[in-house]
């Protein structure tokens, strides 16, 4: 089935992957034997900082800064034709070349991690009842915005 607005769906996935970048960074840091996930959930916050949408090529999503056990981390991912083509840490505890190479290695892993949401291609989302206020943060709200 042809989807008219695949990009918004991808954004949902991209927002979720912001925390995956953080997790991957934490994994590779010295002394990080076991990954404690990021303290904050990605939520809708990461998605709200999306720049102007519309063009098909090279959309950029800036995640919110997340405090990890190694310090604050903020990532930016670029999505082209439904794939994350670039991921970079705009803020990292150790912003040297090594960190940058780690984020580069993270790109294929991110695409894999994001597939579930990206490929789900759902028309609606069922979940525990939301209030009118809770709706604003819901996945259904994102689907509605994409379709209206």
């Amino acid at each position, binding site marked *: 089935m042809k989807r008219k607005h695949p990009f918004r769906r991808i954004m949902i996935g991209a927002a979720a992957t912001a925390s995956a970048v953080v997790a991957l960074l934490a994994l590779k840091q010295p002394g990080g034997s076991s990954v404690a996930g990021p303290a904050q959930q990605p*939520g809708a916050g990461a998605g709200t900082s999306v720049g102007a949408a519309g063009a098909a090529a090279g959309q950029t999503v800036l995640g919110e800064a997340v405090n990890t056990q190694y310090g604050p981390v903020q990532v930016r991912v670029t999505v082209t034709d439904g794939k994350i083509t670039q991921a970079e840490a705009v803020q990292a505890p150790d912003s040297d070349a090594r960190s940058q190479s780690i984020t580069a290695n993270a790109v294929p892993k991110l695409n894999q991690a994001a597939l579930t949401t990206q490929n789900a291609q759902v*028309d*609606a989302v*069922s*979940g*525990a009842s*939301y209030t*009118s206020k809770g709706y604003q943060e819901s996945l*259904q709200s994102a689907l*509605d915005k994409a379709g209206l």
Partner: protein
Amino acid sequence: MAAGSPEPGRLRHVEESMGTVFSFDIRGVTDEARVRAGLRAAVASLHRVDEIFSTFRPDSQITRLGRGELTPAECVTEVAEVLDLCAAAERESDGWFSTRHAGRLDPTGLVKGWAVERAVRMIASSGAESVCLNGGGDVQLHGGPWRVGIADPLRPGALATVVEAPEAQEGLAVATSGPAERGCHVLDPHTGEPPVRGLASITVVCPTGLTAADARATAAYAMGEEARDWLEALPDAEGFAVTATGGTWTTTGFRHYAAQLAV
């Protein structure tokens, strides 16, 4: 709220009512004027249900009935219809579904599902080929194909699984209950407390419609782990649960509805 025609033959609409938001997605629209009239009637019916059944409105018929100011016979016919459905749901669930919380009359666990199912029937009878109506997280489908994601209760923003309604599936409904449900309005009717051995969420899929799915999801969430055997034994019901520790289980027939994910 907003209404639009994003593509030919398709109508979408978002409407706030009953303290939540209803998302309409209508496909296969040939006679647009007629379907729009059906949509307007469906929207009006949701607001009417809110007026009659809201437990938050001191002047609603359900509030006045609960206070003894009205008899069932003095209420509009929908009240008796809903209370009969509630009584049936209470029997089917051996009391796990209940309309009596803290001495108040509260059919909330079923009335939204019933209202959504009725609204979808109105739109379908106006000539729409396929309808998907999401009422605050509970979804009634008509026609298809449709794909309904199940929100992962433990990972906001992620989906736990996807339910698929192929074209042949008429009237499939998907209801989910969990603790996020309006500040845990699901209570163990036997203790009046939140469920003890709680699930993170339970999704019930019913081919017979959202009235049944909504009531069963409410009862199943109150039951906790016991819901698995209960749903397995029920005809026309399948379940998908996310446990408190992040594990999942399904009833055996759920696989008929689980979408093949291209991951």
